[in-house]
């Protein structure tokens, strides 16, 4: 198969790259753009580790062809901090002990971001439902849910300043 040139907008920057047309977005991010924060764990959309944002919506990058991502705004875990300041969800994950091995963390944080952007006042049950596609084998999810609830509070306070 011949390579194809595409342009991807990732974390606010345009990348002109040459890829095999059957490459999935997760592999392009990791191998072509060196953005290895996005993790691949099952390659079939069951675990959520590869979750990124595409035009603001949570998207499984292991099931998405990179060519389909052209013209969209892609945000990965590396693009979440602004001007060196961690996003409130990242801070909450750190402070609430929501990170153990860390392999699910990037995908988990991106799913949480998609949720809070759409629903700034979720209940714990809504958080659980929004994260139910992101598997974690370490934490039992307790501190992850706590962190997302705390981040929601923090983000509201930030807006009211």
């Amino acid at each position: 198969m011949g390579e194809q040139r595409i342009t991807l907008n990732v974390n606010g920057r345009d990348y002109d790259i040459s890829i095999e047309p059957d490459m999935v977005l997760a592999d392009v991010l990791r191998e072509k753009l060196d953005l290895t924060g996005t993790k691949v764990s099952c390659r079939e959309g069951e675990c959520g580790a590869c979750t990124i944002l595409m035009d603001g919506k949570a998207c499984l990058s292991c099931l998405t062809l990179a060519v389909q991502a052209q013209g969209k705004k892609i945000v990965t875990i590396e693009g979440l901090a602004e001007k060196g300041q961690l996003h409130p969800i990242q801070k909450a994950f750190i402070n609430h002990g929501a990170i153990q091995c860390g392999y699910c963390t990037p995908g988990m944080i991106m799913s949480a971001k998609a949720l809070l952007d759409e629903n700034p006042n979720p209940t714990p049950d809504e958080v659980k439902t929004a994260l139910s596609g992101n598997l974690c084998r370490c934490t039992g999810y307790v501190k992850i849910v706590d962190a997302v609830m705390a981040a929601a509070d923090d983000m509201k306070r930030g807006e009211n300043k």
Partner: protein
Amino acid sequence: MSAMFKLVGKPAPRHDAWAKAKGDQLYSDDFTMPGMLYGKALRSKYPAAIIKSIDTSKAKALPGVHAVLTAKDVPMNVEISKFGQMKDVGGGFEGLYKVLADGKVRFKGEAIALVAAETEELAEEACRLIEVDYEVQPGVFDPEEALKPGAYIVSSDEGENESNLIMESHINKGDVEKAFAEADVIVENEYRVPPVDHAYLETEGGVAWVDDNGVITMRVGTQVLEHYRTIAKVMGLPQNKVRNMSVPMGGGFGGKEDITVETFLCLLANATKRPVKMVWSREESLEVHSKRHPEILRYKTAATKDGKITAQKVEIIMDGGGYKLLTGWVQMYSTVNAPGCYNIPNVKVDSYSALTNNTPSSANRGFGCCQANFASELQMDELAAKLGMSPLEIRLKNCLRNGDEICTGFIPQGHIALEEIAKKAWEGLEATGPKPDYVDGKKIGRGLAIGMMSYGRLTFMHDSSRVGLRIELDGSVTLRAGVPDLGGGQASVLCQIVAEELGIPMEKVHPYIMDTHLTPLCGTTTATRQLYMSGNAALVTVKVLKERIIKKAAEMLDAKPEEVQLINEKACLINNPLKSVPFVQVVGALSNDGVELFHEGQFNAPFTDVPNLHDMKGRIWPDFTYSAHAVEVAVDEETGKFEVRKVVLCYDVGKAINKNSCEGQLEGGCVYNQGYVTENMGWENGITKARSFAEYLIPTAVDAPEIETIMVESGGGLGPYGAKGVGEPADNSIAPAIVNAIYDAVGVRLKEMPVTPEKLLKAIQEKNK
């Protein structure tokens, strides 16, 4: 005492939390090197077969393929492995490690050949071109069948080809037969527990290359750095020519305790003199890496009519799968824990493990203990039901207390809080309100189970750990430790201990971890041993440096050493904190004096001899951690589906050095053990049916219950500051509490996991007939 702590006991973020939150943390699969090739393993199509011949010529001829290796290319393909241990323990506890299959294939998915090629696709293509001539064998898939005379023999290797028996072990305490003759009640049951996959999010993988000094070097996440010794041996190299610059794991749970990709990578890198990467697919990981031992456990319990247990007789049959691996060790845990966490005067345990043609069994969080705990805690409720006692009552009547001996006659030194934690867990659940009969049309039930599990290695392994420290001239500290970090915060807690002792902020201690050539070896991240072993090693080490600092500071403050403390980056007088000298100035003064500002210290666990396996007696582990879980479930009587609504868990953790990490282990272990009830590998005659996360269903955020965590801190552990280990004990006593709660709801107790809706519905229907 606790008021004195600045850092210990606090929920301190770990040193690596920022990198992990930002996606900056690198794992085994995140390394790419110039000229890197991709490695693949050709795996057996059959669980039992004889390899008659292997033809690799077509694969080798494929352009872009740089190496195709089979058993004959491995300098020492078969090695008797000590599994990373330093002590020669002997026969039963060492196992055959075979790199690539020859003679008999022993399980489906066993590696037969290795390929390195320029792309992953080419490597896969080359594997397809390797022609293996198999003579398919009947195989044996049931451990009891495997132990019968005339059974199919799994192994063709010397020393294993006489019978499939791996090990037998026995406990004889008192006189069980006399106790049965005199008993008021006797309860007899058989329990069966299934294999479990670790289902870490990160599959096995890594990179290897030959460095410019000819050292075979790899970056592979592993729970056992010390495997470099075995890898050197099978490659015919000296141990100082194989190096693992290891990386944090994306989960371990025992699944990265045996060698995974390391030897394959090193062989391919050595053969091609190019960097090689190998990462197992999820399907490969589910099919080929070792699982938790499936076991059959037969119980016969005698008791008086007022509920005092007088005898416990247990027979255990363990399925070791195609290779022995750590079966002998796991068997120690199942055997000694079989009677449960109870004071029972007469005990007989007979346990047997067998090779079969199933996927090998080995370490999985809980390590033989959670199997025995499941069975013994169901048996307790069966007894309670027969006697008309409550689950709490029967446990309080019989549980171990301080000064009691376990079934081997050993009296634990650490505090035994079973009575307190059983009450706290059960009362905690009751405090959530009276149990409703139904919620949303589902029947509600509550259950209780308690447990014990060791922390620290089997004492006859003669375990030790080392930590190195260097105080830099700016007052920061470099900590070097070969401590594999699988996500439990194994490295971070060492920094916390050192910072506490030196009176400096945690961020001033930077850890360099997990490099076999450069970091003192801490031993394995297994057996819930790192906080206990390496925490104590860190404490031993930092105290040597602390003494030097305090001595110098006392000179500078014109005081006696016992009058000086280290706090807030100062050395000051205990009785007059205003009289102080900055930490960094003391360090400078020591440097000027030529005093060593570095130290490497070692901590040794208690050592014992290997027990007589026909009559096990005495100390087997350093100490135990005790658990209690009270659970509420809701059962749909129409469908057999159930959900776990609430869990109140209570542990005596000794001392929670990092509160968040400690709670995180307990909560994570709770949901891991919840999964034990329902996860289903779907084994059938050596074939794994669950080959993806769509089929192997682990609990999601929605499945996980509401968890209330109660930590008791008795200070009665053997770890630093009286801490106990919690990593594996956290994965205990939830599954039986769930099954006991289902019984409370609908009056049926399934004695075999997984508990599927079909099985539960059938049992409910049969009961209602």
